[in-house]
């Protein structure tokens, strides 16, 4: 019986991230619109968009291969698994032993790989530009992400997210420069990975500046729905990751019962709402940077991660 409950709770988490992801994107879009004194679309608009896309006919290019048709599902599956591994309302769930930070980075990396392949597959110039830019961003964001993982795992003694979240709630963590640096670096990586404003503009269709949009330009119908939902999930994943590592308060532990889970869920929703608000504020006040400055931005994230790991040795030696 306990086993079945465990699986049920884990299943709830998988469904929860899937259902919440479009809502989060809708929330960010609406806040951004309101900050610009527009009324903005309804919070449910992303759901309606997905519903409409799922019912539309797929238009395929003549030159599209089987890869082009398979890639959206692979991308969506990898991102969904990654997003549902990150602890959201409770830590130590059934599959938490697989929720390894390095595994999550690898899942994200494979999703990006297939997206870039799909962008190249049709052979249009936009897809090629988008894929090469995405790979340039990834080649800097991934090492930065791994440095953050090293910092966290040196501190917590594990790369398993549930254990990291539980460790962060204990008093022995204290105030550490390394954690601050890891937080800043993770925020920078999250911005780059989610194609948000200083690096890429999620709302643009101006050909010179597109990165993510350029790769998915050829997609339509249910394929596009899968890719869009994957992008929503990725945003949710990074916000949950920031929440569970740097603000793990209020998270329920496994087997704590329904009331504790509901409490954890409420806190999680508040965290997402605050994260979305901060993202919208940040995006409204900064300008997009040139593509050739992205390497400096992400290089700084990499250096911060490296510095965090270095400074760890100073504070450990006492």
């Amino acid at each position, binding site marked *: 019986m306990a086993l079945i409950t465990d699986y049920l709770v884990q299943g709830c988490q998988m469904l929860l991230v899937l259902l919440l992801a479009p809502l989060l994107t809708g929330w960010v879009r609406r806040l951004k619109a309101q900050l610009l004194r527009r009324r903005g679309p309804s919070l449910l608009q992303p759901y309606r968009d997905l519903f409409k896309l799922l019912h539309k006919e797929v238009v395929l290019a003549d030159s599209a291969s089987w890869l082009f048709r398979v890639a959206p599902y692979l991308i969506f599956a990898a991102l969904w698994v990654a997003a549902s591994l990150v602890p959201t309302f409770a830590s130590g769930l059934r599959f938490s032993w697989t929720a390894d930070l390095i595994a999550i980075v690898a899942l994200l990396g494979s999703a990006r790989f297939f997206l870039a392949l799909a962008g190249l597959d049709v052979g249009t110039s936009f897809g090629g530009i988008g894929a090469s830019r995405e790979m340039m961003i990834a080649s800097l964001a991934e090492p930065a992400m791994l440095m953050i993982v090293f910092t966290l795992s040196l501190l917590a003694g594990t790369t398993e997210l549930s254990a990291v979240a539980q460790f962060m709630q204990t008093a022995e963590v204290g105030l550490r420069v390394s954690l*601050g640096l890891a937080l800043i670096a993770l925020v920078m990586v999250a911005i780059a990975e989610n194609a948000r404003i200083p690096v890429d503009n999620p709302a643009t269709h101006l050909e010179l500046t597109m990165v993510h949009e350029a790769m998915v330009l050829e997609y339509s119908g249910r394929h596009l729905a899968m890719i869009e939902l994957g992008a929503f999930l990725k945003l949710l994943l990074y916000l949950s990751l920031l929440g569970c590592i740097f603000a793990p308060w209020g998270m329920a532990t496994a087997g704590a019962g329904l009331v504790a889970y509901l409490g954890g869920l409420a806190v999680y929703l508040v965290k997402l709402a605050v994260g979305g608000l901060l993202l919208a504020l940040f995006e409204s006040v900064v300008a997009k940077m040139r593509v050739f400055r992205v390497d400096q931005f992400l290089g700084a994230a990499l*250096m911060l991660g490296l510095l965090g790991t270095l400074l760890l040795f*100073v504070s450990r030696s006492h």
Partner: protein
Amino acid sequence: MHGLAFDIAHLLAGGMVVVSFLMLYQDRVYALLNVFAVHALVLALAVGWQAYIQGAHHLYVTAGIALVFKAIIIPTALHRMVQRLDIHRTLEVVGGVGLDMLAGTALVALAILVMLPVTAAADALAREDLAFALAVVLLGLLLMVTRHNAISLVVGFMSLENGLVLAAAGARGMPLAVEISVAFSVLIALIVIGVFLFRIRERFDSVDMQALDAFREERRQ
């Protein structure tokens, strides 16, 4: 000494290293000056906190000097100078920001590797402060080496001096007379440098230090 008091001291001293890195990242004069003011502000906080946990009251004076002179007067004076020299354009960085940051990280690693074994007998707080202070000094030197613009050389020099004050605060402070005379000599240095800057500009029509290399006949290509 351990617990929260140590953590906050660690946070502030580490914050100075991070702000030093931010200075390396800036490539505009005004941004560099603002970050320098933040650097001095963090120094004042770090020294003030050391005064509080060590119970050393003369360190409050050091913190006050850092706050008034380095966080307010010197940045304002440099702002004025930049305005009068009319050089608020992009700074040139020798190897690119990325390479600078890489070199900076290597220097921080060096500072930690050198300082931790040497000071094994001292208590944790002083050790850590010394390691961070050496890192700040080395980063200040790096800033002076990689920039051509005279104003950034001044900023590099001043941030180096901030590192020295941090080191002194960790080791229970210098005597007050030394402290005040150092602060004033830095101020005098600023005035002298300021006069020299205008002289240099009069003579070479720029404050790029490479112009001086040619004058000293060091580069003959």
